[in-house]
């Protein structure tokens, strides 16, 4: 099984595990400008874009509800200026909400005192930044150890942990380098190592790969998938790149003008786009890479197949991964679930139509 397939399966498994909400955001609003709170209260907690504009305010996040499940990779996708980075900063309370509630493990972040919040961030959260945000005056080792230093850990403890993480992100031997002596990709590896130093329960990534060249970006995405399996944390990942979102997400929230338009698995976004905006977005994505066998098979428990084709495909495999096997078979192949029982069949015509990307336009 190649690496990508294993990872894809992992992702699905996680989705099945993650049924307890870790981070929940309810009715979140963020408007910038003086008197934003009064403005929103006066309107009963809601306002249209036009109303916000006429009041001289700038809207960033409008009435966002989302629930990130424990252990999932939740990707927020949107074009620049749609408010996704602000939303991320609201989730960690770096930016205060204008209205709404955010809970982590059922605790309302808004009710925390300054000290409790500091404590929470020190031990439970990690964040990776678009432009790395490394401290220029510290070495790689000191940068990675920095969050631990802020926590007040001993020098020996933090050095050991930092060395370990630098090794994990593949920068062993560069501990004494300064950030400016590293390439962009390497700098972001430092950023990633640093964010993982405290073993965070929630891992925020704010467009971590957007500032990198395409080749490096793809390499870093691999790296991300590898690390995700090493550290079992809940992930909120921001990106403007749909390919990246589809590749890394268990679920994707599509954001536009501060609102979340649709939250779903990549597959569902393609099969059942909430509106034309989402449809337009997802049109470019090769369906075979996203759709699973289960979403296009003919469901039936007793499938008559010709004895000659005894090949079986898994219900949660991606079409692109099973296409060769199905096309090589003489007839429809059987589809089995994780326990091995047959749940349906998949024929060549269906696979071809997915590969040829014929969709109602």
């Amino acid at each position, binding site marked *: 099984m190649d690496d990508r397939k294993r990872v894809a399966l992992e992702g699905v498994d996680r989705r099945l595990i993650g049924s307890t909400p870790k981070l929940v955001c309810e009715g979140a609003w963020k408007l910038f400008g003086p008197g934003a709170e009064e403005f929103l209260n006066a309107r009963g907690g809601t306002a249209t874009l036009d109303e916000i504009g006429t009041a001289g305010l700038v809207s960033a996040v409008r009435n966002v509800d989302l629930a990130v499940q424990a252990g999932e990779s939740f990707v927020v996708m949107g074009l620049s200026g749609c408010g996704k980075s602000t939303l991320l*900063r609201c989730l*960690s309370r*770096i930016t205060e909400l204008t209205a709404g509630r955010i809970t982590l493990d059922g605790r309302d972040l808004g009710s925390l005192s300054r000290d409790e*919040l*500091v*404590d*929470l*961030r*020190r*031990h439970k*959260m*990690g*964040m990776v*930044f*678009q*432009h*790395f*945000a490394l*401290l*220029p*005056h*510290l*070495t790689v080792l000191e940068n990675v150890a*920095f*969050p631990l*230093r*802020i*926590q007040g850990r001993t020098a020996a403890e933090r050095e050991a942990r930092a060395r370990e993480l630098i090794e994990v992100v593949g920068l062993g031997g560069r501990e004494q380098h*300064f950030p400016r002596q590293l390439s962009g990709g390497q700098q972001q590896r430092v950023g990633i190592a640093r964010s993982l130093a*405290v073993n965070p329960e929630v891992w*925020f990534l704010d467009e971590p790969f957007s500032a990198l060249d395409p080749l490096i970006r793809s390499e870093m995405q691999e790296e991300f998938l590898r690390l995700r399996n090493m550290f079992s944390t809940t992930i909120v990942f921001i990106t403007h790149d749909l390919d990246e979102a589809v590749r890394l997400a268990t679920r994707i929230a599509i954001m536009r003008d501060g609102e979340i338009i649709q939250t779903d698995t990549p597959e569902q976004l393609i099969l059942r786009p909430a509106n034309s905006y989402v449809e337009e977005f997802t049109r470019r994505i090769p369906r075979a890479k996203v759709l699973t066998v289960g979403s296009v098979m003919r469901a039936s428990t007793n499938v008559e197949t010709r004895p000659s084709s005894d090949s079986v495909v898994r219900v949660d495999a991606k079409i692109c991964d099973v296409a060769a096997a199905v096309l090589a078979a003489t007839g429809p192949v059987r589809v089995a679930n994780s326990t091995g029982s047959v749940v349906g069949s998949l024929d060549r015509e269906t696979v071809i139509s997915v590969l040829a990307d014929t969709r109602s336009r």
Partner: protein
Amino acid sequence: MSTRNDSPVGSSGNLRSISRRLGGAWPWFVGLFVTAVLAATSDDVASRRGWVWWRDYPEGWVRSPADVISRATKWLVNEATFGLFSFTQFTRAISFVIERPYGWARAILVDGFMDGVGRRADQIVPPLSWIAVIVLVAALGRHASNRRLAVLIAALFAYLAVFGQWASAMVTLSSMVIAVPIGVAIGLGLGIASYRSARVERLSTPVLDLMQTIPTFAYLVPILFFFGFGPVAALFATIIYAMPPMARITTLSLRGVPSDIKDFGEMIGCSTRQMTWRVLVPTAKAGLMVGVNQVIMLSLNMVIIASMIGAGGLGFDVLESLRRLDIGRGLEAGLAIVALAIALDRLSQAYAVRDTGAVRASRRASLVVGAVVVATFALGYVIEAVRNYPASLGVTSGSFWDDLISWINVNYYDTLEAIKLFVLDGFMLPVKRLFLATPWWWWVVGLGAVGWALGRVRLAITVMSLTAFIALVGLWEFAMFTVYLCSVSVIVAMLIGVPLGVWAAHNERASRVIGVVIDTLQTLPSFVYLIPVVMLFRVGDFTAFIAIVLYALAPAVRYTWHGIREIDAQVVEAATVSGCTPRQLLTRVKLPLALPEILLGLNQTIMLALSMLVITALVGTRDLGQEVYVALVKASTGRGIVAGLCIAFIAIVADRLIAAAARSARERYRPEQV
């Protein structure tokens, strides 16, 4: 500007064509015309109609707060208490904080540690040997950058020893060693406070503005009153003068820290203190070092002025020679200040750009320095030359300068005199007459109108009230002298500086030469200009004029140069492709686009001219600077402060008007930058 659109309602076609040719500028021409008419007729009106108030602000209307201020300072010194402690105790506490470390610095560098007081004191430990100091600063240069810097700094300090300036230079250096860290610490603290709290910033900005615009002489008087004549007063004045840029630069550089890094600090749960000292300040280090450099340079600028209230050292030597018109000694001491300035400037700049961690302090180097200090200390008891640089090996260029000046005076006296008369009669005196003859109220009204055209009601009110204040306190005539000297100098500085800037922007070789000249002019302490000029032209307006032009030239060149270089290369290419000749390119494209920058240069030129004007009072001008200087001599607090405020207000009026003009120019030519 809205006035551009109001087309003049001229009945005749002739008028209309004139107004068309003048474009939007016609109100300005009308204003100038009215000014000229009023200036020409004001004498007549005043004498024939008996309307003296028409021309001069009547004495009966003067309400000066000078006496009140003088009484208030006396009360502060003699009676004021803040409950727990009196004002005098407060100033004594400050003295104590400054005096102790200053005493140690002086002991190490100049006097040695003494036992006992006064004349009968015995030196128990001698000061550092000159050799030890040179090795020490060279090691610092090596630590900050490389061997070349070490050699340069060692050479500059060796110059001090060879030219017999060592003792004075070490006195100056010890006051720097105290003033700079204190100034940096206060500036850093204030800057951080303004960064964190909008209220602190609102409060501190106008105070810093005033600290930077009010001439130093003005606050020398109250400082003298509070601290008495001596090094503490001098250090206090130096810190007040040198600290503001540090505060501003600190706030600016902290704001400039990328928001990602601030979010990162929040995200890992930094406390406020950790955020400031572990994240923000180290990240902003490069910017902060620029501030440190500014504090050093400004402290050195104050060296001479501070010696008026007891700083001693090189500044005192310059001042003494200036008073005795001893050009040779004055120039030598002045050059010694320059040597010190260059050494400290290079050193602090090297630390600013230093590759952090690339070279950590090497233990070997500190051992070597330590060994030299101990060895010279021991040898000093045996060999006199190690302790003090032998006078017999000293060199002096003093007589050379004296001879040079007298040679020029003997041979070219007539030529110099002719030049002086030509400029005075042809240019300076007419301007002076125009300014003095223009009725005071027209200045208030006219400046108000300019303010209204550039920035509407608020600017108009600011400008008018500041101008009216000058009339109200009865310093109008002095102020006009100041404005006249400032104007003629600034006009000439701009006429020389802008073309030089244009040339430098177009010619690589010229830019290198001009860069060096400008750098040198800016490191020279302002007094140094005065010495040769006084020797050649004697005291008077013309001498002041030359010194001011030289001193204020740098920003005119620098800003023009920068403004033209910053123009988008594509715009220049587009203009070239559409067939502009080089001349058209300059006048139609480059100069208009660089206008906002050039206006900023004008602004800086005016500020420098005003600060130099106060100093030229020493050569007998009759302006506000003289008033401040007289107040200093007579220790009249109120008089000094009021005159100082007037100078500050002139500076503020000019600054606000030009800033508004630069803004409107920018809106017109480079809307993307607004």
